[in-house]
């Protein structure tokens, strides 16, 4: 497989991330997807390389996906989930980093509740830093697998119209997708209550904001991406009730039937809130493809960020 040199040694976010680099990752992922479909889905490519999963915030799915991607490429893998110390709240970042440096790992996959933590680590380590979600800021690998999924299905992302429905305000998936989709020439329509989808989002890319999920919209767009609604948002008074949210923005079976394009969701789904059970049977659903593609895309990222070992 041809190995393209990415312009940055880290993957911190898709804001300002070059189009050529996104395409290089997607092209490479396509090759790995083929590998994953083989009887022995494993390559020796990253033998001798070590990947550290540094998850300050638990995430079974993303962690498992990186885990599998690293193993499929024969890299060694270490998982660390720092616990809050009793003396001070949170984890002292430089302390953690010194430990990481001492382990001499080649790549650090980091998830943290605070925006900017991967950026901080990247400034202080020689390892390649991959952002696996920093607070409500970015989740570039999720957006890349979404872009990959759209590209596999439609052939090209340019010119697509993608509706992102739900809690955009608190969503790192939405932000990374806004940047990535805009860079590749798609149009993004953000849908949700004004409390969770402020109109200022139009400034971050090729973005429109609407506060009603009309049938016309479901007909007009190529893809509908539903975002996970966290129950805490209800307590913080962003909408009146989960029932109300479901009525106005939930992808019900009936709404799903009106979707002309495809239905996507970054997972895990809160059934009965953003998706009604059974909605996935009413239209073309790419939710499971997203999971499979996640491994291929993360393999591509590890492969492109880690230089081959000499000898």
């Amino acid at each position: 497989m041809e190995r393209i040199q990415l312009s940055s040694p880290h993957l911190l976010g898709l804001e300002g991330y070059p189009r050529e680099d996104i395409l290089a990752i997607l092209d490479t992922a396509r090759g790995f997807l083929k590998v994953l479909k083989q009887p022995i889905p494993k390559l020796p490519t990253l033998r001798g390389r070590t990947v550290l999963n540094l998850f300050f915030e638990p995430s079974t799915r993303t962690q498992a996906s990186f885990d599998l991607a690293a193993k499929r490429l024969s890299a060694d893998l270490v998982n660390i989930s720092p616990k809050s110390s009793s003396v001070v709240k949170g984890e002292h970042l430089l302390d953690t980093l010194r430990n990481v440096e001492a382990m001499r790992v080649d790549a650090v996959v980091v998830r943290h509740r605070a925006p900017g933590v991967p950026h901080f680590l990247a400034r202080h380590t020689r390892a390649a830093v991959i952002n696996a979600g920093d607070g409500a800021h970015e989740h570039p690998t999720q957006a890349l697998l979404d872009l990959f999924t759209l590209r596999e299905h439609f052939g090209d992302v340019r010119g697509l119209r993608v509706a992102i429905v739900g809690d955009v305000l608190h969503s790192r998936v939405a932000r990374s997708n806004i940047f990535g989709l805009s860079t590749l020439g798609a149009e993004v329509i953000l849908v949700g209550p004004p409390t969770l989808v402020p109109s200022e989002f139009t400034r971050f890319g090729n973005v429109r904001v609407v506060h009603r999920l009309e049938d016309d919209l479901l007909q007009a767009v190529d893809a509908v991406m539903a975002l996970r609604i966290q129950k805490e948002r209800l307590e913080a008074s962003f909408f009146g009730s989960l029932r109300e949210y479901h009525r106005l923005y939930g992808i019900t079976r009936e709404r799903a039937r009106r979707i002309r394009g495809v239905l996507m969701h970054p997972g895990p789904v809160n059934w009965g809130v953003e998706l009604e059970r059974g909605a996935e049977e009413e239209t073309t659903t790419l939710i499971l493809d997203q999971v499979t593609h996640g491994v291929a895309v993360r393999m591509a990222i590890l492969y492109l960020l880690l230089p081959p070992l000499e000898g």
Partner: protein
Amino acid sequence: MARKLLRGTVDLHGNPLSVLWEEDRILALGPEIPETEADEVLEVEGTVFPGFIDPHVHLRTPGQEHKETLETGARAAAHGGFTTVVTMPNTDPPLDRPELLRGLYEEARQLPVDVRFAACLSVGRKGRAIPEMPLLAEAGAVAFTDDGSWLEDAHVAYQAYAMAAALNRPVLSHPEDPRWHRGGVAHQGERALKLGLPGIPRESEELAVVRDLALARLTGVRLHLQHISAHTSLPHIRRAVAEGLPVTAEVTPHHLLFTDEALETFDPRFKVNPPIREEADRDALRKLLPETWTVMGTDHAPHTVFEKEFDWLEAPFGLSWLDLAFSALYTHLVRPGLVDLATLVEAMTLRPARLLGLGDRGVLKEGKRADLVVVDLAATWQPTPRNTFSRGKNNPLMGEMLFGVVRLTVAAGEVAYRG
């Protein structure tokens, strides 16, 4: 009686200015004072100003001496040319009892500069009841404040402001209504939204300012609005001043120098409350400086390096300023011609003296306290953790080349710092 003479110095306009003092009082000023007048001569090159006065510092004592002590804070002040500082009572325990103030004043007698204490506006800073304000005033409280939080309950605030008015002490209000946000850590604007950081809107300040101005009208208190950060607060303050209310607005170095563009760095040294906001806010504050009711307060908030190495959500709010505030403001506002030197100096001397009712200082004049600072404006220095005296090294200008080197600080006639 020891008479000291400072010579070799010039005034704001570059004209030779010597100063002669005896004990803690200035005896004479002039272009040429004969050496024979003095028992001791200090020959220093640079521009001489009245000692700077900072109405807003956090010396963290008692309770958080790992961040700053009275001693390290006072030495940082002297190094930065400050001869009087007012330290905030959000300590552990909070300064809400006269006994505490008396003990601290006892300790402060040894310090190289005049450290004054402000007392709490409410018991325990909890906003539910007023403390023994007359007894606190008697014990030396120069002002009353719940700085760090706003006295939200308008009824309690009414009582507290009325009491302060009767005691002829200013209220230093931290105007921020916390009900406007949930755990905000940055200016609520496009940049924080893009970066996924919970925001603090301008309105949280604006509406607190409006309430406070109404109470100033009701009670006649001298109201000092601390660390104004939002341009939307300014029309309300201007209107109150025009109406004749005794109101002053505080501007900090960080709100004058930085914008929320710094959020992009995710460097927690820029994390401060109220937050640094947009270019429009910064520029409006710069334009405010010539107004005589504007006072510079640094909100010197020292933290350990360790504490500032957490992520943006966990890191504490605040910047350390005493060592370098004047140099930073001189370098970034005066030298590029955005603010004139006389204005900056007045905002750091005469205006805070008036605010605090300290009639004996803030100007170089016969009979005033011998508080002065000599700055070599053409010389440069690079603040580093090693050459600064505050325990707090949390300032993003650390390591930057700054103009304006303090050569001498004299407080109450004694040399407090000599470089």
